[in-house]
């Protein structure tokens, strides 16, 4: 098992500790403040506890830690302890008692209630309708984000979204219009060109008893131009992207450019400007399908250097380019030949 495999398993197992959260009440009034790491642990998660007190010197005190009335750590200057949280809906009462040499006794109390929050995101950028991958955000587009919160009461009932108050942040700035009670999803601007946004969400139950948070780093992606054959029988050959250098056993072929992750809803969006060049000569795009071009290699040496630049009106940040060197065979396909083998 490689280190990467180990990390992947830990990632699956430990997702709760990365993105999930907890709720705790801290009892500083009695003299000791308890802090937890992580701040919002999930269910069945490891939690590190640390005590601090302005009232007495804990390093010179006898300290006892209790979890649900059972001692879990004890000794002089033991300011830290560890526990494992219970399942969702559980509550662990942590009590720490310190007694100094002069007999002064102080205590602190905390209640740890595990919660879980997943932060999911996607983009509204363009991908073909049957594309199986994620649409990635590019400048000028939008992000759709959703917080999936799992808050449970002690009786096992799930707290509905309508009873949870969500606060959305983008790079630390609260998104007021997207935040509020029941607002478990939001639409935010995509990161700027070459930028990375940190999206975070705080979730607190309406009664304040449960809380959690999650965050995600979302990088911007540059739109990517891919070229495919638009076959008269099979349609768009999305499974066979044209490589930078491609040989084709035919003398004429129609091609379609697909602007992956462009901030539009269609490759024929009127705001997109396709600038085609074939062997250095500008070719005006088709009026209705500007992302398509047909090339005939009859009466030529069969080499076509196809260049495409894609820009978007009033959007200086979008400038996708692609160049493909296509070698046509004037002989065409022999009867019975498999056209799918020709570009391999």
């Amino acid at each position: 098992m490689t280190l990467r495999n180990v990390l992947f398993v830990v990632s699956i197992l430990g997702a709760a500790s990365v993105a999930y959260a907890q709720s705790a009440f801290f009892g500083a009034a009695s003299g000791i403040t308890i802090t937890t790491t992580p701040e919002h642990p999930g269910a069945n998660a490891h939690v590190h506890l640390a005590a601090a007190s302005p009232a007495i010197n804990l390093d010179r005190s006898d300290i006892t830690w209790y979890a649900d009335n059972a001692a879990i750590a004890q000794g002089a200057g033991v300011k830290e302890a560890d526990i494992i949280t219970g399942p969702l809906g559980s509550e662990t009462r942590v009590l720490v008692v310190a007694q100094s040499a002069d007999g002064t006794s102080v205590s602190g109390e905390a209640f740890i209630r595990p919660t879980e929050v997943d932060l999911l995101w996607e983009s509204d950028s363009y991908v073909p309708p049957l594309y199986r991958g994620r649409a990635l955000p590019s400048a000028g587009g939008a992000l759709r984000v959703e917080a999936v919160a799992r808050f449970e009461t002690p009786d096992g009932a799930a707290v509905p979204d309508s009873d949870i108050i969500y606060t959305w942040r983008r790079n630390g700035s609260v998104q007021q219009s997207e935040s509020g009670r029941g607002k478990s999803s939001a639409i935010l601007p995509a990161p700027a060109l070459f930028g990375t946004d940190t999206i975070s969400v705080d979730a607190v139950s309406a009664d304040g008893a449960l809380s959690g948070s999650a965050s995600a780093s979302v990088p911007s992606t540059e739109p990517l131009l891919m070229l495919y054959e638009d076959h008269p029988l099979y349609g768009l050959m999305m499974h066979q992207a044209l490589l930078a250098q491609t040989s084709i056993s035919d003398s004429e072929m129609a091609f379609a450019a697909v602007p992956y992750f462009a901030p539009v809803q269609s490759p024929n969006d009127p705001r997109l400007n396709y600038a085609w060049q074939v062997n250095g000569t500008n070719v005006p795009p088709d009026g209705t399908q500007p992302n398509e071009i047909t090339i005939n290699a009859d009466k030529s040496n069969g080499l076509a250097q196809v260049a495409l630049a894609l820009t978007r009106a009033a959007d200086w940040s979008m400038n996708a380019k692609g160049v493909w060197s296509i070698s046509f065979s004037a002989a065409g396909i022999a009867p019975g030949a498999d056209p799918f083998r020709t570009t391999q």
Partner: protein
Amino acid sequence: MNMRVTKTFVRFMLVGIVMLLVGGLVAWYLFLRAQVSTITAQDAARGYGAAAAPAQDAVRDAYNAIVSGISSFVGAGTTTVSAGAQLWHITKTPVAGMGFVGSGASEKLRFAERATGYLFEVDPRGGAVARLTNRLFPKTYEAVFSRDGSVILRSQDERGGITSFAGTVASSSSEAPDARTLAGAYLARGIRAVAPGASPRELLYLTLDQGGGTTVIRSLWDGSSPKKVFSSPLSDWKLIALSDGRIFLAQSPADDVAGYAYEIKGGALVPQAGGAPGLTFLPRAASSAALFGGSGGGALAFSVRARADAAPVALPIKTVADKCVWVPPQPAPAKSKNTKAAQAAGPQIAYCAVPQYIPSTRFLNDWYRGAVHVADSWWRIDASSGDVELVPASGAANESFDVEGPVIDDSGSMIAFMNAADKTLWLLRLGTDANSASTTPR
């Protein structure tokens, strides 16, 4: 005197008009010539030469394209092809999807041809291939089959929207086997994903909402009696429906991007996996076992979980869950009182196609875009022990395949899949003398 002056004036006028006309015509000629030159240059850039191709060449090209695009089975009624090897390359032309129909000796493999949408039926044991339908559905990009042979044919309309036709093969005995029609109706436009439900006549699909979200709908196969199962403000979901009735949503994966997978239970999302970059996910029916793939940091990772309360075990193979199938739970012995428990406790075997070489550090993105392809080998995974074994396969020795969309029959003895490089149909027979023996794991 005046008369003479007038005649001279008229003469000069006429000469002037003629000169203007001639000059205008010359200018018009020059203008048109410039335009023709521009158009010619653009046509030359496209490759259209000055001389038109002879008409017979155009006819020949169209004929060749059609001949090469249509399956050799078309019009032949029933064709028998070689079917002796463990690996069988069934079609030489692309298909849109496939599914097993029936069981036991009568089990057949149905598939839809991509160019025509015609349905074909393969006898996986005897090798006979027969065309079932003659209704044309050009450019069928995806076909999803029910256990009873019903099909959803998916294509794109002129506006780029997805169309979905829910069809059933007419069973009239008066019609020739290759002349049956595909009866059915179009479902709503723009359905994002479809999956057969737990019962043969049930369909699950994802529709896009106005605000960018999606709704999971359960309906009859023809789209009637729709019922909302779940709504999400997100749309990039993969819909997974198991034979035991459970429904899962997994975020569409991308390299280095955290993904989450959930089971829809009582209208809520129950987490299955989360936070792993490039997460691909495949749960098993009648148990809580699942396969997890990951793509992050330029490498693939793969794990299996035998039970919900068990830790995922990292496997020494590198692939994605899209290339895997679980052997279906086998019927429990008649004397077993707890059928569900017996099925869950049975062997939890999965088969995965594993790339012999990963050609990209962003494999998922590049593979989904058709920018890279791999040569796969089949591996057997025992979820309970975490053991993996290479599945030897004879036949098609000189051909490589990049497995996409594998489906397995009810008995777990055959896997049909498309080669992602050309969308042709393949069949792998399991449990034969040639491939039942295992080899040393990598």
